[in-house]
């Protein structure tokens, strides 16, 4: 199954590297321009479930890596059905100084909260997302707090450390 998928993928797209470091897991590293087409390709092949969308800040390489983890349900039976236990990891690097990517809501609708979360915590903008409004955070941060150059220790000292204790002064 893995071999067949690999052959089909390499026949359809150019410059895609497919590796498989575990029995049931395939890692596909793709160019950001091709990413949407490849995700659609996999959805048509039976990977109907986006299990996770996350981002990694690779500050040394000046890039963000977006990681899409796709699986399929075992009851998806059909000609091109894949076994349910297969896990597909699609990775795509985008430049750190221009963090913009296309939204995949049109392919996987459940990516909506994931993209909002990544937009809030990493500052990556998703084109075509209907509402990139704040999701979790209450406060305003100087830069998005999950980026590697966000200095949490100094932020804590500046913000929480500067709040005075009660009882030092008269109320």
């Amino acid at each position: 199954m893995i071999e067949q998928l690999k052959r089909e993928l390499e026949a359809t797209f150019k410059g895609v590297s497919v590796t498989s470091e575990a029995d049931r897991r395939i890692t596909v590293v793709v160019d950001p321009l091709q990413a949407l087409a490849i995700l659609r390709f996999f959805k048509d092949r039976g990977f109907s479930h986006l299990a996770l969308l996350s981002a990694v800040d690779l500050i040394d390489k000046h890039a963000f890596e977006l990681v899409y983890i796709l699986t399929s349900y075992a009851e998806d039976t059909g000609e091109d059905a894949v076994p349910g236990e297969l896990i597909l990891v699609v990775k795509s690097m985008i430049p750190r100084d221009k963090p913009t990517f296309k939204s995949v809501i049109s392919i996987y609708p459940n990516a909506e909260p994931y993209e909002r979360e990544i937009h809030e915590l990493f500052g990556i903008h998703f084109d075509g997302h209907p509402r990139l409004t704040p999701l979790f955070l209450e406060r305003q941060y100087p830069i998005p707090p999950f980026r590697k150059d966000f200095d949490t220790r100094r932020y804590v000292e500046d913000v929480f450390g500067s709040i005075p204790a009660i009882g030092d002064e008269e109320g």
Partner: protein
Amino acid sequence: MDRNQIAKWFKEPSKMANKYSLHAIYFCTGCGIIEVPPVITARWDAERFGVIPVATPRQANLFLITGYVSVKTLKAIIRTYEQMYEPKYTVAFGSCPINGGMYWDSYNTIKHLDKYIPIDGWIAGCMPRPEAIFVAVTHLWTLIDKGMANGYERYRKYYRAYRRNQELALGKLEWPPLYPIGEHTEGGECD
């Protein structure tokens, strides 16, 4: 009831009644939720000590904060605390409310809870055993006896400073001040 305490009951009946009927509201933030169910159920039966869980803050006079406090949770904690009737006692459970614990450099966790609401007792540990709640409760009895569990009085006295700290952490608060704070009130609301 101890026979030796009969004199105390006649002298200060309300204080004694408060002491032995601590109606607790548990604010289960984080991992303390694991310790609380065995405490209130048969294994460690908190009702032996007069501690029972209640449904709403309006019926409670013991506020247990069990675990780390994120900025968003702090808002709910302040609102819960302000809804409780006096006398009210607060016990912070675990090391996270004391100084942040393992979240001491987290961007989104409140470090010292006593800067925002008054705390009467601390239970150190990560996490403390359920027995520690009873140690805290018996210690709280002593504090109530001596009149040292006066967090709600401190809250009233230093309310302006507490409110200022709450605003520093949360920005503009959506609810009006619990007690008059003078200069910030506008439009003749102050009494």
